[in-house]
């Protein structure tokens, strides 16, 4: 349902709303039985009073176009109703494009995320310095990988490479991955590893295999939003656990676990997206204790774990888990070409079996060529060299962004230096709305992602996620200067606005 209000128009707002809904019903783009948004929600999204929406709905009810049912909300009435039939002046032409909203199922509505599109188009403009993406520096391609690719495709066994792989992935790659994880302290067998198409698929599989409609899933507040969307899409109820500098607040978690029984906890303990924070060892231990005590599974997303810049990274939850409660997910997308779409999942055998069964009906298996390339690369010496190089490069970029922030940030902008990963999490002064800042920043030629995007409970409005791995190192300072200029502008306007407020306050009542 789409409604555009013209506030300057002489037509009262409630009438504008009623007319537009009416038109959509009459042209058939809103079908009988379509559930209209609750009044409060619509009022909020249109920034109007709730009574305005109430009046509009009342108007439509009077016309017999919509009706209310207890427990079902407000729905579009059957068009066969007497009052409406004669109003239907323009039936839909037979050859018109299908009215898609008739066909989409309700579940898919939960995946849609409209406000990201504007942002993505902003971030991909050429003149923009983008701190918005979550992708690696484009200049960090790797010639060795390209060589491996050529070999794979030109060798005598090239055609073998392109014949099916097992659903779980080639055993040789799974073996290589189990060895690879030793560096992260995980000791598991090849059978406990499942190759997936990027860790996003692992998240999706976890959702499909584990979530029952209405199940509770706990996540950090804020968290990686595509994961939230997956879980929501499966009908989970998501509860956010607040975070501190040293990771998830495990004591609030303990309180929460006394009251509810979540299916699993989704967490990114190492260099969390979007905050860049690293969960302390103490908290990791406590989290494992709680998982055992309440028999809750943990989905550990370790996408950034290897990107530790200052010190050896802390052990993964998986490495501390003897019982098998942790489902470990990781990916090569943050370290080598993300387009290869190779991630993996490590968990106890029964889980891997079930995951594989579900995965089979989704896309059979990960691309054979990608699997072969990654296997060769990670078992050779090239991977370690490459990782060291990008770590020292990203550390430099991080330092550059930190130095720029320290130099140009306005009072009230708070940020901590992340020990690894891709992001700096930065607050705005005076509770400024990051979405407003983004509009202005876009005009100045810099983009980031507003904190709200990552929030479970529509919080973090006053935070920005700044990526430091993508922009050219020479552009980072300029980007921060532009960003701070946008913030200065808005603060000034905000102050002027507040100053007006104050004048009104001191006007004596006569």
């Amino acid at each position, binding site marked *: 349902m789409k409604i555009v209000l013209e506030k300057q128009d002489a037509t009262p707002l409630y009438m504008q709303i009623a007319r537009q809904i009416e038109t959509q019903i009459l042209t058939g783009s809103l079908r009988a039985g379509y559930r209209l948004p609750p009044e409060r929600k619509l009022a909020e999204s249109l920034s109007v009073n709730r009574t305005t929406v109430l009046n509009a709905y009342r108007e439509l009810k009077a016309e017999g176009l919509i009706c209310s049912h207890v427990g079902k909300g407000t729905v579009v009435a059957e068009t066969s109703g007497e009052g409406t039939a004669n109003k239907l002046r323009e039936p839909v032409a037979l050859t018109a494009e299908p009215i898609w909203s008739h066909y989409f199922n309700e579940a898919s509505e939960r995946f849609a995320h409209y406000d990201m599109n504007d942002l993505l188009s902003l971030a991909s403009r050429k003149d923009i310095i983008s701190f918005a993406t979550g992708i690696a520096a484009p200049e960090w391609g790797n010639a060795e990988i390209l060589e491996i690719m050529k070999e794979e495709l030109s060798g005598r066994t090239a055609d073998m490479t392109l014949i099916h792989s097992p659903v779980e992935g080639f055993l040789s790659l799974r073996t290589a991955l189990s060895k690879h994880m030793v560096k992260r302290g995980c000791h598991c067998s090849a059978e406990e590893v499942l190759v997936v198409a990027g860790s996003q698929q692992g998240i999706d599989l976890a959702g499909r295999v584990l979530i029952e409609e209405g199940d509770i899933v706990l996540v950090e507040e804020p968290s990686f939003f595509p994961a939230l969307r997956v879980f929501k899409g499966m009908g989970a109820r998501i509860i956010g656990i607040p975070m501190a500098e040293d990771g998830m607040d495990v004591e609030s978690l303990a309180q929460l676990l006394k009251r509810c029984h979540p299916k699993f906890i989704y967490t990114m303990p190492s260099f969390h997206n979007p905050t860049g924070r690293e969960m302390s060892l103490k908290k990791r231990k406590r989290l494992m204790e709680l998982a055992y005590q309440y028999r809750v599974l943990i989905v550990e997303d370790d996408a950034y774990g290897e990107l530790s810049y200052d010190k050896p*990274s802390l*052990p993964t939850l998986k490495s501390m888990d003897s019982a098998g409660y942790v489902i470990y997910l990781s990916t090569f997308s943050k370290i080598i070409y993300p387009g290869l779409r190779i991630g993996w999942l490590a968990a106890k055998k029964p889980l891997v079996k079930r995951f594989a069964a579900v995965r089979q009906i989704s896309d059979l298996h990960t691309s054979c060529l990608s699997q072969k390339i990654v296997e060769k690369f990670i078992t050779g010496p090239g991977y370690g060299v490459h990782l060291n190089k990008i770590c020292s490069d990203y550390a430099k970029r991080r330092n550059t962004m930190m130095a720029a922030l320290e130099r140009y940030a306005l009072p009230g902008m708070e940020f901590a230096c992340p020990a690894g990963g891709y992001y700096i999490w930065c607050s705005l002064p005076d509770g400024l709305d990051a979405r407003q800042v983004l509009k202005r920043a876009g005009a100045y030629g810099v983009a980031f992602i507003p904190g709200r995007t990552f929030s479970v409970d529509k919080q973090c409005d006053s935070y920005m996620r700044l990526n430091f791995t993508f922009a050219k190192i020479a552009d980072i300072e300029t980007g921060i200067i532009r960003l701070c200029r946008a913030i200065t502008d808005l603060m000034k306007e905000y102050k002027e606005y507040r100053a007006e407020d104050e004048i009104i306050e001191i006007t004596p009542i006569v």
Partner: protein
Amino acid sequence: MRIRYADRMQRLKASEIRELLKVTENREVISFGGGLPAPELFPLEEIMAVSQIVLKEQGMEALQYTTTEGFRPLREWIAARMNQRQGMALKAEGVLLTNGSQQALDLTGKIFLNEDDIILCESPTYLAAISAFKAYSANFIEVPTDDAGMDMEVLEGLLIKEKNIKLIYVVPNFQNPTGRSWSLERRKELAKLSAEYGVIVIEDNPYGELRFEGEDLPAIKSFDQAGNILCLGTFSKTFCPGYRIGWIAGAEAIIEKYVLAKQGADLQCNTLAQREIMKYLELYDIDRHIDKIKAVYLQRRDLAVRIMTDCFPREVRFTRPEGGLFLWVELPVGLSAVKLFEQCMARNVAFVPGDSFFPNGGKANTFRINFSNMSEERIEKGLRIIGEEIEKMLRVAAGE
């Protein structure tokens, strides 16, 4: 003919310090390089007397083979001293004499390290320990270290995650190269973790007796719950390094293994040296001698710190150790200590660039200053020259 060396020799490279010491034999060079004690403080007269007495009274024994473990009265003296000063509970059976503590490091490698075992060490750490352990094809993981010791969280994290960790090597008092010391809390914590995760700790303590400021802290070994902490000590810094007498002390069962390894290496330490040291300890008061050393080193440290505060640019940071022989300098990031070294050498001043103290390579902007070995006059002159050269580098870096 191509000489085929063992594979492990590829891991051994000529030590920068050794190359340096060669240079500094040239008297003209003011060297803050080596870790040498002040030679003018060696108790030469007393040692002359002692050696006469030993040869006269016990010549036959003193020139004969002796046990691998070492001269028993000396081992008893060492155990008593460590018990009294560092809160331990050692017996003579738990002490093995070695050729300086360097041999104890080598023997440690011999009895503990398999290829690809991991050693956790401070960052930076003692250079010669790196070479001793590297010879056994071990790998190092550096644990971030601050003014109070290792980062315990990272340390524990590594103990959880890395299965090949064999040893934790630390120098908790006036560490070489930084001069920093561990806090009481971290000492206790390390002992706790070593028991919890069953990993051996090598506590190397050559400088602990040279505290000229502040309170002595108990050894990590004094909190040992599981008997897996081993202590290294030496007479090299409190008496004379030329004797090459040091020791390793700990649980008797482990020391037995060291004895076996030492038998194969060199049978025993020099008999004469052991007996002369013991005789000295009987006849003279070594504490008075150590007090003398401390007084001189304190004076030299004060002078060094004063000159550095005075004439090093503000951006340069350095430690102010409460004991020992070294302090550690950090230049602004981006400046190269090796380049500074070259500039200073051109003016006949030497020190050790810091990168060789990082087993996995590291901070090129650091260097070590030894303040024990030279007269005040040379210290002052040398440090002023280093200060001037840093100043120059900063100006070049600023593009002036």
